[in-house]
C-alpha cells in the first residue's frame, strides 16, 4: 500500500545523464535523501512524482507505472513540494494552502467546511496560521516555505515528496518539522531531501546519493551507512556516535 | 600715367566686367523651407520623391529630365519605368546619390532631406496642400527647370478644365452639400482642403465647414445628422456605407453617391497638375445623377 518504487531509472537533462540506473523503494516511514550538490536528489523526487520524463527505467506506484495514472488520481496519492517556490500572483497564504485541495475538488467542485478544516489543520501543523491573510510574496523565505509545506499537507496524500523543506527555516522550526515528519511517518510515506545531515539521521532510513547514483541506503545506526556518508562527502563530515543518536559533524580538524 | 592710358585701363576694366555677365543666368530660388538654392544652370537630372511633384515636372514639359521617382509615382505612364527609390519615410539614400541628380524634390515631412543635403545634394522642399500651393509649386518648379512661362500655361490649362467642369455640373445640383470621405475612420475632406476648394469651384457645398480643418476625423453621427445631399468616397467604402449604423437613412446613398475606383480616387486626392482632370472626374459623376423630384 502506498509503495513508490523506482527501477533502473535513468534521467537525462540537457544531454547530461543526471540519474543513472537508480533503483529504490519507498514504503511507509520517513526516508531522508542526502548527497552533495548535483547528486540528482531533486531530479529523483521529480521523477518519482511523475513530473520528469525518463530516458529509461520505470517508476511504479503500488506496482502500476506512474504514467498510467490519470493526473488527478496521481495528485491524490502523491504530494510534491518544490525546492524553490517560484511564486507570482496575489494569492494569500491561506488561498495557497487551499490550492492543496485541488486534487480532491477538481476544477469545478465547491469547497466545503471539511476542506476548510483540513486547510486549518495543515496550516497549524506548520505553524503558519497566524499570517494566513498575508500575500505570499510579502512573506520571508522561511515563512513561505512553511506555507508551501502546508499546501502539500492539505492534499492529504499518503505519499509526500518534499524537496528541501527545511532549508530556509530557523532551528526551532526545523526541529518542529522533524517532529512533524516523525508523526507523519506512522501513517504516510515521507521522502524528504535534506541538507542537514544530523536532521537526516533522525529519519527511519537514509538514502545517500552521489553523481546520479545511490551510494547507500540504510538505518541511522548502520555503520555501512556512516562509512558511505563520510566517503560521499569526501571526508568533510564525520559521524559522532557518542550520543543517543549518531550525529554528523563537520570535520574541521587539520 | 597720362589720361589716355587711364581711359584705356578703364575701358579694359569695363569690358572685363561685362564679359562675366553670364553670372546673371544663375537661377536663385527659395523653397518652402525658406532655403535659398542657387543653380548655375537649370538642373538636367531630377529626382522626385512626391507623386504630385513628378506630375508637375512632367506637365511642365521636363519629363525627360527625371532620373528617378518615389514608389508611388505612377503618372504619366512614362515615369513608371524610372527607378523607384522608396517613399518619403524610407527613401533609398544610396540609390539616390548614385543617380547623381542635380536636384531632389521632396515634401517637408521627408526624413532624408538632412541626409541628402549633408551628402552635397540640392533638396528643394515643396509643400502642396491647397490650390494656391499648386500654383506656387508650378511656378517654382518652372523657374527651376528654366522655363518660367510653362507655369502660366499649366495653370491656364487647369483653370480651363475647372471652368469646363463647373459648367458640366447640372443646375439642379448646384449648391448641394457634399460629403467627401477620404478614409473610412471616417476622415472627411473639409471645405478648407484642396478637395473642398475644387468642390467650391464646381459650385458645390460641403458638410464640413472650414473651421473644422482640412481633413478632420469625424464622429459618424455628425454625418448622419448633416444628411449630405451627395456622398463621394472610394467605391468600396460607398458600398459598405449603408451597413454603418444609422447610415441607411442617408438619402444620398440612393442614387446620389460617387464611388470612385482606385485610379480615379488617387487622381482626386493628389493636389497637383491634374487637379483640372480631377474636377472633371467629379463633374462627370455629378452629371450622371438624375434630377430628383
Amino acid at each position, binding site marked *: 500500500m502506498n509503495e513508490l518504487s523506482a527501477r533502473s531509472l535513468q534521467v537525462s537533462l540537457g544531454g547530461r545523464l543526471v540519474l543513472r540506473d537508480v533503483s529504490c523503494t519507498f514504503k511507509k516511514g520517513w526516508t531522508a535523501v542526502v548527497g552533495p550538490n548535483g547528486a540528482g536528489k531533486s531530479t529523483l523526487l521529480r521523477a518519482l512524482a511523475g513530473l520528469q520524463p525518463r530516458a529509461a527505467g520505470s517508476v511504479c506506484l503500488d506496482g502500476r507505472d506512474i504514467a498510467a495514472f490519470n493526473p488527478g488520481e496521481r495528485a491524490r496519492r502523491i504530494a510534491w513540494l518544490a525546492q524553490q517556490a517560484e511564486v507570482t500572483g496575489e494569492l494569500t497564504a491561506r488561498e495557497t494552502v487551499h490550492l492543496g485541495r485541488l486534487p480532491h475538488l477538481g476544477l469545478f467542485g465547491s469547497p466545503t467546511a471539511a476542506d476548510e478544516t483540513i486547510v486549518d489543520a495543515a496550516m497549524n501543523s506548520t505553524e503558519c496560521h497566524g499570517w494566513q491573510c498575508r500575500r505570499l510574496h510579502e512573506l520571508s523565505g522561511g515563512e513561505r516555505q512553511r506555507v508551501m509545506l502546508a499546501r502539500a499537507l492539505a492534499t492529504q496524500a499518503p505519499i509526500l515528496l518534499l524537496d528541501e523543506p527545511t532549508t530556509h527555516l530557523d532551528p526551532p522550526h526545523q526541529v518542529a518539522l522533524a517532529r512533524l515528519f516523525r508523526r507523519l511517518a506512522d501513517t504516510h510515506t515521507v521522502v524528504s531531501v535534506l541538507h542537514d545531515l544530523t536532521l537526516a539521521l533522525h529519519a527511519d532510513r537514509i538514502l545517500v546519493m552521489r553523481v546520479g547514483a545511490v551510494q547507500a541506503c540504510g538505518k541511522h545506526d548502520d555503520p555501512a551507512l556512516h562509512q558511505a556518508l563520510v566517503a560521499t562527502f569526501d571526508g568533510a563530515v564525520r559521524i559522532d556516535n557518542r550520543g543517543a543518536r549518531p550525529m554528523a559533524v563537520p570535520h574541521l580538524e587539520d | 600715367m597720362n589720361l589716355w592710358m587711364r581711359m584705356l585701363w578703364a575701358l579694359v576694366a569695363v569690358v572685363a566686367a561685362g564679359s562675366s555677365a553670364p553670372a546673371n543666368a544663375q537661377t536663385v530660388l527659395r523653397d518652402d523651407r525658406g532655403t535659398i538654392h542657387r543653380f548655375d544652370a537649370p538642373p538636367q537630372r531630377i529626382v522626385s520623391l512626391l507623386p504630385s511633384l513628378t506630375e508637375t515636372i512632367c506637365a511642365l514639359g521636363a519629363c525627360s529630365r527625371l532620373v528617378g521617382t518615389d514608389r508611388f509615382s505612377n503618372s504619366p505612364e512614362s515615369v513608371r519605368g524610372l527607378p523607384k527609390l522608396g517613399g518619403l519615410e524610407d527613401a533609398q539614400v544610396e540609390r539616390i546619390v548614385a543617380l547623381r541628380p542635380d536636384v531632389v524634390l521632396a515634401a517637408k515631412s521627408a526624413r532624408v532631406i538632412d541626409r541628402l543635403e549633408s551628402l552635397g545634394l540640392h533638396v528643394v522642399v515643396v509643400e502642396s496642400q491647397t490650390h494656391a500651393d499648386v500654383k506656387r509649386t508650378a511656378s517654382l518648379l518652372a523657374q527651376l527647370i528654366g522655363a518660367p512661362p510653362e507655369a502660366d500655361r499649366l495653370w491656364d490649362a487647369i483653370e480651363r478644365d475647372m471652368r469646363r467642369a463647373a459648367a458640366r455640373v447640372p443646375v439642379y445640383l448646384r449648391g448641394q452639400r457634399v460629403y467627401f470621405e477620404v478614409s473610412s475612420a471616417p476622415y472627411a475632406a473639409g471645405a478648407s482642403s484642396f478637395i473642398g476648394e475644387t468642390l467650391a469651384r464646381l459650385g458645390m457645398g460641403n458638410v464640413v465647414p472650414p473651421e473644422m480643418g482640412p481633413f*478632420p476625423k469625424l464622429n459618424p453621427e455628425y454625418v448622419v445628422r448633416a444628411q449630405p445631399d451627395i456622398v463621394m468616397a472610394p467605391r468600396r467604402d460607398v458600398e459598405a456605407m449603408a451597413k454603418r449604423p444609422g447610415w441607411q437613412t442617408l438619402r444620398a446613398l440612393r442614387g446620389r453617391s460617387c464611388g470612385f475606383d482606385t485610379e480615379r480616387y488617387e487622381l482626386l486626392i493628389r493636389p497637383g497638375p491634374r487637379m483640372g482632370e480631377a474636377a472633371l472626374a467629379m463633374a462627370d459623376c455629378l452629371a450622371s445623377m438624375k434630377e430628383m423630384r
Partner: protein
Amino acid sequence: MSVAPASTHVASHDAHDDRTRRRRLVLALMVLAIALSVAGLVVGSQGWSWQAFVSDVSGPQADLIVGQIRAPRTLGALMIGALLGLAGAVAQGLFRNPLADPYLLGSAAGASFAVVLVLAASTLTGHAISLATAALLSRIGIVAAAFAGALVGVLLTLMLARGAQQGVRLLLAGVVVGVVLGAAGDLVTTISPDALRGKQVFMLGSTGFLGWSSVWVLLAGLAIALPITCRLARVLDALSLGDDTAASLGLPLPRIRLALVVLMALCTGLAVSQSGLVAFVGLVAPHLVRRYAPAPHSYTLAASAGMGGVLLLAADVLARGLIAPQELPVGVLTAVLGGGYLLWLLHRRRVG
C-alpha cells in the same frame, strides 16, 4: 530565493480589508458603467450639451441618433473592453507575466494581415491570387476576415510552438508569427498602396461604427467566454505557484493551457473584428484590478472584464466629447486614461 523583511514589521492585510476592497471595486465598476452608459447616450457629435440631448430625444430623429447610433456604440464599447480585459487577465495569468497582453499570440498580427488581404484583393488579382479567390475575399468583408485572421494567427503560433506545453515557447512562437505576418502585411501594402489606408484605420482601432448587430455578436461571445473562463480560474491560481507544482496538483497542463489559449483567441478575435486593434485595454485593466483589490483569479478575471469595459467606454465617450464633432482616436485615450490611473495608484501606494 529573496528574503522579504520580517513579517512583524510589515502592515498586515486583513482578510476583512481584502473583502472590503473587492466589494468596493465591484460597486465602483457598476456605478461607473451605468454613469458612463448614460454619458454615452448623451454625448454625441454636439459634445456634452444637455440641451442638445433633450432636443435630440424629443425630436424626430431620436430613435436614429440615440437608439441606432449612440446606444449600440456605448454597449459595444463596454463589451469590447470587457472581452479585452478578460483576455488580458488570462494572458497575464497564463504567462505569469504582468506585461502580457491579449495580442501576444499572433491574434493581432493575424487579424491585420487578413484585413490587408481583403483590402488588397482587387489589386492582387493576377499578381498573386486568382480572380475567384479575389472575389471570395471581397465578399468576406473586414469583420469576418479579422476574426478568422485572429484565430489563424493563434493557430499558427500553436503549431509553431508544437502545442501549448511550455509558456516560453508559446510566447516566442507568438512573437515570430507576429513579426512574419506583419512583414507579409507590409509587403502586400507595398504592392497595393490603397490598402494602406484601411490598414491604418484598423490598426488604430475605432468604436465608431458599432451597430446593434455587432452588439448581439459581442454579447453572445461574452456570455459564452466569461463563465467558461471563470470556471478555469483555479487553474490560473495553481499556475501562479509554478508549472511543476500545478502539474503535481493533478492538472492536465497541456490541455488546460490549450483551452485557455483558445478562449483568449476567441475573445480577442471577436473584439478586434469589431473595433480594430485598440491598444492598452487588455494590458492595463488587470493591473488596475490587482493594484486596488488583489485577489485570486476567480475574482480578478471578472473584475478585469468589468474594468476593461469601463475603461474603453470612458475612452470612447471622451473621444466623442472632447473635440466634437471631431473625434480623437480611442486608442490614444485608453492609453492616457489607463496609464494615468495606473501611475496615480503606484504613486499612492508608495506614499501611503
